[in-house]
Every structure is written in structure tokens, then in C-alpha cells.
């Protein structure tokens, strides 16, 4: 029933599993007197009174004697930081903050439990608060009031995308998001494995076939028309969604918009990296950018003029992050400004 002193006690979350806990156990008085002490501390905040269960460790009692006898700490003559002494001071402070008397101001954190039809707080932490001029209590009163007004009393507004999550439509949405994520990861890992610098849809579309079985069911309005939809069409649709997502993230881009649908892999595009690096290097030397560095939009505009009009901001950000990771450039005032790392820096 009782753990021996020093033995690790199971978490309070598991106590309910022990049937003895909720029964009126028949104990020897001798054992009751030796039991680990829990204090039932009624706490009053001016709006109500609730019991807080604050468990006091037996170890405190042992430490108390040791600490009390050496309560006047001797100042170390050696000076500097003495860990043993500091630890003693810490333990003393912890012990004092847990010694409670009527009238003490407490901060209690814990979970609400109902025990024998009474609400209680099972404290996971509690400590005395030093508040000589009631500053803490007054600001607590004002703070709690504003919390209620600004947050607790307002109904939580789920974002639109999440609002219908517990409908069948919502289920579909969740499933299609997860399929999209998996498809993106599948494509990118294939591309990286093969070290592809560029690819066409037909090179990679087949990879998405296994994911079709996980795709969400069509909505009822479309059901009749898509009954005969071939799997290749489904793959095609999925590919369209995935490639758009990868473009939005800047992982791939189309250098030239033409009949020939070729996608460049940003990380592998050496030409783009070289052009970007040159732009940052040249402009870093100019007085205009010497102090703050080049803004990412300026770099983007130069790249668009010299390399390709179709490079997006997310693509250039990816390139800049790679250059920074490889210590060729560094960000200056924020993540939007970069400078070239020259030998003299």
C-alpha cells in the first residue's frame, strides 16, 4: 500500500487504478500516523473557497532537521560560487516556501477533481507569494477580470477550414490534406534520391498511383459523373495538386513556361544559385546596400531580369537559405536582408 521511503511513487494519474484509494481502508492507527502527509488547504480568493490538496514530501521533514541545524549559513571564505552551499540555500528556500500558515498568500496550480461530491484542486505545484503591498493580489484581480472578458467568455471561433471537421465533408478534407502531404513527401524523396535537377510530369506521376486508394470519396454531387473516372485521371488530378503545393513552397519551379512542361528542382539548380550569389556579392559592395544588406525583393527582381521571369519569392528564399546555410551569405537586420560574406568580413 505505501511505498517505502525513497521508492519512486507512481504518478497521481495512476492512483485511481488502485482500488484501495477510493475505499475506506481499515488501517492500524500506527500506520495512519506514519503516512505521508497531505495538507488539505482551503484557499479563499474572495469569490469562493476551495480545498487544495498539497502533498508534502517526507523528505522535507528529514531535510528540515539537517537544514535547521545549519540554518545560519557560513559565508564561504573562498568566495566565488559554491554549488554545495547554493544547493543548501535552494533547499532551504524551497522548504520555506512550502511551509504554510493561515493568512499566507499562495499561488496554486493544479487540476480540478471531485472527491466525495466536493470540488478540490489537486495541486501539482504551490508556493507562498511575498506580497507586502498587495500589488500581486490587485493585479491578479484585474488580470483575471480581463481574461474572462477578452477570452474565456467569448466562444471559441474555429477557422473556416476547421469548422466542418466533424462532418463527412470535414473527414474528406482531412484525408485529402494528408494524401497531399504524403504525395509531396513521396515526390520530393524520389527527386532527391535520384538527384534530379529537373523533371517532367510523366517522369514522376506514376509514383502517386499507390496513394489513390487513400484518396477521399467523391462528394455526392459528383458521384455519378466520376464513376467511370479512370485511375490515370485521378493520378493526374493528384499530381496537379501536389505540383502546385511544391511550387508554392518554392521547392520546384518552371524556368520557362512553354508546351514542354519542365520543372526545375530549386536545390539542384546550380545556375540559379550562381546567379543569386553573384547578385548578392556585387550589390553588397555598393554603398546603398553596404549597411543593411540587400532586400530579398531586390534580389528577386534582379534574378528575374537575368535568369528567369518565373522565379517566385519562395524559390529565391529557398536559394538564399541554402547560400546562408553554406556560409556564402549572411542575413543582416532580419530574414529579408542578406550580404555576401567576403574574405575580409
Amino acid at each position, binding site marked *: 500500500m505505501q511505498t517505502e521511503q525513497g521508492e519512486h511513487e507512481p504518478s497521481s494519474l495512476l492512483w485511481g487504478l488502485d482500488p484501495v484509494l477510493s475505499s475506506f481502508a481499515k488501517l492500524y492507527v500506527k500506520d495512519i500516523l506514519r503516512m505521508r502527509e497531505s495538507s488539505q488547504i*482551503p484557499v*479563499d*480568493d*474572495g*469569490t*469562493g*473557497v*476551495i*480545498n487544495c490538496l498539497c502533498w508534502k514530501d517526507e523528505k522535507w521533514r528529514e531535510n528540515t532537521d539537517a537544514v535547521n541545524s545549519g540554518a545560519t549559513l557560513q559565508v564561504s571564505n573562498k568566495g566565488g560560487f559554491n554549488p554545495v552551499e547554493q544547493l543548501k540555500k535552494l533547499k532551504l528556500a524551497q522548504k520555506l516556501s512550502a511551509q504554510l500558515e*493561515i*493568512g499566507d498568500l499562495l499561488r496554486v496550480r493544479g487540476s480540478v477533481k471531485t472527491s466525495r461530491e466536493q470540488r478540490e484542486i489537486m495541486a501539482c505545484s504551490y508556493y507562498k507569494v511575498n506580497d*507586502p*503591498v*498587495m*500589488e500581486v493580489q*490587485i493585479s491578479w*484581480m*484585474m488580470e483575471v*477580470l480581463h481574461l*474572462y*472578458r477578452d477570452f474565456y*467568455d467569448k466562444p471559441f471561433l474555429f477557422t473556416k477550414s476547421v469548422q466542418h471537421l466533424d462532418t463527412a465533408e470535414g473527414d474528406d478534407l482531412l484525408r485529402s490534406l494528408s494524401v497531399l502531404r504524403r504525395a509531396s513527401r513521396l515526390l520530393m524523396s524520389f527527386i532527391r534520391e535520384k538527384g534530379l535537377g529537373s523533371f517532367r510530369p510523366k517522369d514522376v506521376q506514376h509514383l502517386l498511383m499507390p496513394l489513390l486508394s487513400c484518396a477521399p470519396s467523391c462528394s455526392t454531387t459528383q458521384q455519378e459523373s466520376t464513376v467511370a473516372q479512370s485511375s490515370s485521371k485521378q493520378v493526374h488530378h493528384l499530381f496537379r495538386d501536389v505540383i502546385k503545393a511544391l511550387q508554392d513552397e518554392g521547392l520546384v519551379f518552371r524556368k520557362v513556361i512553354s508546351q514542354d512542361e519542365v520543372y526545375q528542382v530549386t536545390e539542384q539548380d546550380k545556375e540559379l544559385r550562381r546567379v543569386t550569389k553573384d547578385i548578392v556579392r556585387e550589390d553588397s559592395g555598393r554603398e546603398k546596400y553596404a549597411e543593411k544588406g540587400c532586400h530579398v525583393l531586390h534580389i528577386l527582381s534582379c534574378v528575374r531580369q537575368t535568369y528567369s521571369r518565373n522565379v517566385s519569392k519562395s524559390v529565391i528564399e529557398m536559394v538564399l537559405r541554402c547560400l546562408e546555410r553554406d556560409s556564402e551569405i549572411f542575413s543582416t537586420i532580419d530574414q529579408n536582408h542578406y550580404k555576401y560574406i567576403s574574405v575580409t568580413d
Partner: protein
Amino acid sequence: MLPEPGVFHFPWEISSVQEGAAVRTYGRLRDLIASIRNPEVSEAVLSSQHLSVQYDITVHTAFVEPFLPSLHSHYIVLGDVERTEGDGVMVRARVLNCVDGINLALLQQAIVEQRRYLQERDEHASHLKIY
């Protein structure tokens, strides 16, 4: 059985609080007088000014003895209201803390705001019950 919460009251409201209710209130320690009934127990008088009127609250300090009195300092008392002979009102203190240096105006504002909020909430709740 848990005690009732000590609800904040302004010193000028104490006389209208019912017998036995738990209150929190405040005042400056003006006097310490030995009780006529029991010379060993003293009573403290907490004094406040409101709209040019002085309000005195007698605080029975048996439960909080010994306490080191600091005359003219601000004190917060948490205790139970008792009626005395005549029209007297007394608070039997369970907690008596010196809070000298307290920003009284801020405390008053906090009490007023809290009351207003709790009242609005109760009114709103009772409206919902009706409809």
C-alpha cells in the same frame, strides 16, 4: 465544511453586512484598545475616510494574536462580522495583515470592476433562465 469566502467590502459597507458573514476589508490602524470584557485580548480599530466621513471598524484580534502593531499603517482584515451591543459592528479577524504602501485607489478600482463584472454575469445568466 469549508468557510464562506471573505468577499471584499469597503469600510463604509461593513455596517450593512449581515451577522456571521465573512468579509475582507481594510483601514489604517488608528488604535489598539483593551477589550472591556477581557483585558487580555485587545481590539484594533481600523479607520478609513470616504467622502469626508470617517468610518471605524473594530477588529477583534484574538485569533491573530500576537501581532506586531504598526500604528497608522494600512491593514487588510479577513474575518467574520459580529454585531455588538447597540449599533456596533465588529469583525472577528482570522487574518490581519499589514499592507503599508498599498495603492488603495487601485484596490478600490479592482473591487469595483470585479463586482461589476460578476454582477453583469449573474444578470446575463438570469436572463438566459427566463428566456
